C-alpha cells in the first residue's frame, strides 16, 4: 500500500504564501504576548502556590471562590477570591493558583486546603489526606532560578544543534534549521499565549522535544538535498530541493502521522497533569513538519541564491 504516490509538488513556488502564513501566525502570537505583557508563566517560574483538591462530586467554582474571599491563618487574613480557580481535569477536582502573598506563613498552602475542607463538609472525602491531589509551592528565589535555567537550556540546545549541523552540513543548512526551530518555538509560545495556557517546566521540556523532533524532520530532507545536489547538477537548486522534499514526502507524512497519533492519545487519555505537555507536542508535531518544508528548505534556497557558487 502506498499512501503517497510519486509526487511532483512545487513546494518552493509556494514559499511566498507560506511566509505570509507563518508571518500572520507569528504576528498574532507576538501581538497576544505584547498585549498580555509576556507569556503566562506557571508558578515554576514566578513563584507562588498551586493546589489541587478533589471533591466527592461536581463542585461550583463560584462557591469555592466566595469561600476563599476570607481565609484566616492564625489571625492573618487573605482574600484569595481574585486568584485563578478552575476545574482540574474532572469537574469534581479544582485547582487554585495563588501568587506569592506578602508575609506568607509557612503552612499557607495547607491552611488554604484546610479552610476549603472545613467549608464544604458534605462534599469532601472523609479523610483529609484523600482530599489533596497536589500542593506545589515555589519560592520567588527558586522561581527566578528556574527561569534562568530554562532560558539557558533552550539557548544551549539551539547552540549545540547549530554547531552539529554546521559540522555535518554546510552553514546555510544550519541557519535554515535554526530558523525553522525558532519559528516552531515562537509559534507554539504564541498559540499558548492566545489560548491563555501557561508555560511550566514540563512545557519547556516539550519545547526542547519539539526542537528535537522538528530537526529530525528537517535533517531527513536536508540529507536528500545533499545527496541530490551531487546527482542532479543540471537542475536549478530550487528544483533539486523540491525534488528532495517530494522524494521524502512519504516518509515525512507517515512519521508525522504516527507521532501525531501518539501525542493525540496522550492528550486525550493522559490525564490533567500531562495535558499541557501533550498539547504543546501536538502543536509541535504539526508546526515542526510544516517548518521543515516551508521554512528550513526555502531559507536554504534563498541563501544559496545569494551566495556565489564556484
Amino acid at each position, binding site marked *: 500500500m502506498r499512501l503517497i504516490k510519486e509526487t511532483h509538488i512545487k513546494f518552493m513556488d509556494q514559499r511566498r504564501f507560506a511566509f505570509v502564513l507563518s508571518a500572520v501566525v507569528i504576528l498574532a502570537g507576538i501581538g497576544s504576548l505584547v498585549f498580555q505583557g509576556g507569556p503566562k508563566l506557571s508558578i515554576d517560574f514566578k513563584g507562588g502556590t498551586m493546589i489541587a483538591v478533589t471533591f466527592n462530586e461536581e463542585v461550583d467554582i463560584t462557591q469555592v471562590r466566595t469561600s476563599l474571599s476570607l481565609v484566616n491563618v492564625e489571625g492573618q487574613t487573605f482574600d484569595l477570591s481574585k486568584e485563578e480557580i478552575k476545574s482540574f481535569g474532572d469537574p469534581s477536582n479544582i485547582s487554585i493558583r495563588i501568587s506569592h502573598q506578602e508575609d506568607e506563613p509557612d503552612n499557607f498552602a495547607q491552611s488554604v486546603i484546610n479552610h476549603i475542607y472545613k467549608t464544604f463538609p458534605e462534599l469532601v472525602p472523609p479523610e483529609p489526606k484523600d482530599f489533596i491531589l497536589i500542593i506545589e509551592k515555589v519560592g520567588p528565589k527558586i522561581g527566578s532560578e528556574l527561569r534562568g535555567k530554562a532560558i539557558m537550556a533552550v539557548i544551549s540546545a539551539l547552540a549545540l544543534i547549530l554547531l552539529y549541523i554546521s559540522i555535518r552540513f554546510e552553514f546555510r543548512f544550519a541557519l535554515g534549521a535554526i530558523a525553522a526551530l525558532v519559528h516552531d518555538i515562537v509559534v507554539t509560545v504564541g498559540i499558548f499565549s492566545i489560548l491563555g495556557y501557561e508555560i511550566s517546566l514540563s512545557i519547556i521540556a516539550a519545547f526542547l522535544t519539539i526542537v528535537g523532533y522538528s530537526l529530525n524532520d528537517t535533517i531527513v530532507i536536508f540529507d536528500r538535498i545533499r545527496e541530490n545536489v551531487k546527482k542532479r547538477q543540471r537542475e536549478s537548486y530550487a528544483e533539486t530541493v523540491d525534488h528532495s522534499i517530494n522524494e521524502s514526502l512519504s516518509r515525512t507524512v507517515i512519521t508525522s502521522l504516527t507521532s501525531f497519533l501518539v501525542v493525540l*492519545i496522550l492528550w486525550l487519555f493522559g490525564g490533567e497533569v500531562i495535558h499541557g505537555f501533550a498539547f504543546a507536542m501536538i502543536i509541535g508535531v504539526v508546526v515542526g513538519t510544516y517548518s521543515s518544508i516551508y521554512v528550513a528548505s526555502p531559507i536554504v534556497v534563498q541563501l544559496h541564491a545569494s551566495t556565489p557558487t564556484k
Partner: protein
Amino acid sequence: MNKKLTPRYVIISLVLLWAVYSLWPTVQLQTLSEAELETMREEGNYGALESKAIKQGLDLKGGMYIVLEVDLPALISNLALNRDEKLNRVLEDVTEKMDQPEADFFVLLTQAITDHKLRLPRYYHEYGSNIDEIITNLKAQADDAINRVLEILRNRVDQFGVSEPTIQKQGAHRIIVELAGIQDPERARALLQSTALLEFFLVKDAEVTNDLLTRIDKILKGSESLEDLAEDTEPADSITVNEETAKETPVSDDKTISVSELFGETEADITDSAVVDQRLFEDRPFSALLRNFGTDIGIPEKNVYAVKKIINMPEVQERLNAGNGQLLQSNDSEQITNIDGQQENIFRLYYLEKEPELTGGVIEEANERLGSQVGGQPVVLLDMNNDGTKQWSRITGANIGRRIAIVLDKKVHMAPSIREKISQGGTQIEGFADINEAKDIAIVLRAGALPAPVNILEERIVGPSLGADSVKKGTWSVLVGLALVLLFMLFYYKIAGLIADFALIWNILLVLAVLASLQATLTLPGIAALILTVGMSIDANVIIFERIREELRKGKSPKAAIDGGYDRALTTIIDANLTTVIAALVLYQFGTGPIRGFATVLFWGIVISMFTAIFVTRTIFNTLAQRKGIQRLSI
C-alpha cells in the same frame, strides 16, 4: 541459517536474555499478591527485589519533594557575641538580597559589612581578628552546620519510618528531601522544619506583666508608627468592631485613633463577634486585643496576627529588651465558649525572662506516652544527662513557687508552677494535639536541635490517589498509542511492518530494561517520553522501508534493494536522531526530578531505536532475503 548471520543472532539473543533478566524483578513486583509480598518483607528479601525493579517517581507513587535552605543569617546571628541593632540591620540587609537568584550569602555579607562599615571583630573575635579571617571561619561554621542539619534530618526521617527516603545536599546550603508515600504532608513538613530548640524560661510575675502591657499601650497611643501599623495590616480585617460601636463612631479624618484607621476599613458583614471593645481600644490599644484567660493572658485567634505585629514593632522590642524579657505565645489554641455563647479559639501569651535557664542540649532521652491523668493526654517524657540533672535541680530548688515555661521552637507548650525541687532530672511536656504529635516531638528532641532554622524554598506534593491515577492513565495511553502504531505499520508495510512492530515492542522492553538496571526513576513525563518513543522510533524503520521501496521501484532484486535501502538510510537516521539526543542531554542537564525522568527515557528510547532499526530488523530482513526463491518483498 547462514553462517554470516550467526553472530548477529547470538548478539540479539544475548541482549534479549539480558532484557528479560533485568525486567524480571519489576514483573515479579507487579504480579505478586499482597500476601506473597508480605512474606518477602518478613524474610527480608523485599528490599533486594525492590531495588532491582524500576523505581516510580514521586509523581506516580505520591509523595513529597522539599528543598530546604539553612537560614544562614540566623546562624551567623546566633554565633555573634555582642549582638546589637547594627549587626541586625546588616543581616536584614543581606536577607533581603538573598532573594535574588544564585545569590551567595557570604559574598553579600562581605559587601554589606563594607557598606555599613561594620567592625566585625567586635562580634566575632573568637573567629579571628580581621574580616577575611572571620569570614573564612564563619564559612567553615556554615559548612559544618549544613552537614549537621543533614545528619539530624536523616536521623529524624529514619525514626519517622519512611521507606527509601532521599536526603541530599544540593549546592552549598540547600538540602533536598524526597519522601515517598507520605500520608500526612503537614506532619512530615513539621518534622523536617522543626528546629527542635527546647528551652526552659522563668515566667515573669503577674505584676511585672501587667506593667508591661500598660507600657505597650502607652507606646502604641503615643506612637507615630501607628500609621505604619495601619498600613501593614491593611489587608487584614482581623480586628473587627462591634457593629453598633462601629456605627456610633464614623470614620473620622482627625487624629483620634479609630479601629478603621488602624486596621483599614472593617467589613461589618463578616463580623461574627465583637473582638475589641471600641472605647477600651482607644484607651488601651494593646490590652484591648487580649483577654483574661484564667490566670494567664489570652489572645483570641483572630487577634494573633495583630498582636504579633505589635510585638515586632521596634519600639515594643526596645521596651522588651529593656525589661530583659520576651513575649511568647502558646503552641496551640484552646476552644472556649465566650459570654455571647460563641465558640472561640484562644492562645495564651506569656511574658518570660529573656535568657533561658536550661536548653535542650541536656536531653538524653525523649519518649512519648499517654499520660496517667484522666483522658490519657499525650505527653513527652524527658530524661536529662548528669549536667542537666544538676542544673535542673538547682533551678527548681531556687524558684519554688514561680512558674517555668517549657518552650519548643519559640512556642510555649506549658508553664507549670514549681512546687518542689526536682532532683532526678526528669520532666514531661504536655500540650499536644494527639499522640502522633507527641511522637514526632519526641523524635525531633532525640535527634537534637538544628544548629540553625531551615526555610522551605520549594515544595511539591502529589497525593497518592493522583499518583495512582497517573499510572493508570499513563499505562493506558502507552498501550493505546502502541496498539495504533503497531496496527498502522502492519497495515501499511505488511510483512515488513510486522518486522518493524517486532522491533518496536523490543525497543520498549529494552528501554524499560535499561531503566531497571540503571536504577533510574520512571516519572509521568517519563511515561510521556515512552509514548513519544513509540511514535518517533518508528521513524527509523519508515526511512529504511521507504528507501527499500524506492530501490525496488528502480527494479533491483530484493536482496540488493535491502542492502541499498539500509546503506542509504544509515547516515540519515544517525543525523536525524542525534539532534533529539542533544535535546535530551540538555534537558537532563538542566532539569530535576520529573524532567530528568523524561530526558532519560527520551535518550534511551532514541539510542535503542537506532539499534533495533539498524541491527535487529536488518538481520531479520537478510534472513528472509536469503531464503531461496524469494521473488518479491512484502513491504
